[in-house]
């Protein structure tokens, strides 16, 4: 079944404590090539049948209203993935 992937990240100007904790841990494990880390959310919405424009529009709206908190987060990506 096709899925719509929605990616949500904290707005760049907002503190990301999760990313900060990971960024602190990486070098201790020998991963030294990364300047910064930010952690966001990935949602996979499964669609039964074809992903029409209308369904995609629904996903976009759900992304903006339910899946993200527009006060602190941005929807960075909405895309269809076929299996």
């Amino acid at each position, binding site marked *: 079944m096709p899925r719509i992937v929605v990616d949500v990240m904290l707005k760049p100007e907002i503190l990301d404590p999760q990313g900060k*904790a*990971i960024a602190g841990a990486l070098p*201790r494990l020998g991963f030294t090539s990364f300047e910064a880390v930010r952690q966001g959310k990935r949602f996979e919405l499964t669609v039964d049948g074809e992903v029409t424009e209308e369904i995609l529009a629904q996903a976009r709206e759900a992304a903006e209203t339910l899946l993200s908190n527009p006060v602190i987060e941005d929807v960075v990506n909405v895309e269809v993935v076929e299996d």
Partner: protein
Amino acid sequence: MSTELPLIGDYSTPTNELSGARIGVVTFPGTLDDRDAARAVRASGAEAVSLWHADTDLQDVDAVVIPGGFSYGDYLRAGAISRFAPMMSKIADAANSDAKLPVLGICNGFQILTESHLLPGSMIKNDHLKFICRDQLLRVENNQTAWTNGFEAGQEITIVLKNQDGQYVADEKTLDELEAENRIAFSYVGWNPNGSRRSIAGVSNKAGNVVGLMPHPEHAIEVGFGPDARGTDGLTFFTSVLTHLVGGKK
């Protein structure tokens, strides 16, 4: 004489070293229940020894408690970052060595033990998605471990449960194995407070020296400060390991 709230790393007073046993309590950044675990150790008659996550010296402790909290904020996954602490590799080595160092992981400590693969399975968010704090009824399923030998098999006890990521998950094969090998140490009685598979509250490794559970025995050791304001069922965890250490029943 009054005593001060001990700083982390300073459990020197008051001690009561009846048994002579030294039990390590590990502190990670973000650990919360370390002083409580140390108090429980002292209440059982042993000496509490502070172990710092970044150190590598186990200080000759006879057993280790990995207490609860939100190490590294639990931001990535509960226990995910702590698992890589230098002290954890020492503990893992000692737990797997012939000496079979007894290790008890409570809540975040349990999560760290699963992330370290010292115990099977893992924990995800509670099925109701909320933090939950309650007095929890448990059944002791296995009283043959280093930390449960003071209980009767099937005994029901009440200790404190408080967590956000307490839903125990593992694949069916692992769950079957755990059951077959009698490694489910505790299960929830009455209500499954976080959706854990097969109501599992705690498990042990094969040898029975490593035990992890979500609820908090260290918060049920003193009348007036625990579940129902009366319960002290948690104390038996700590006296069990002393019995184990002096070669009592397994």
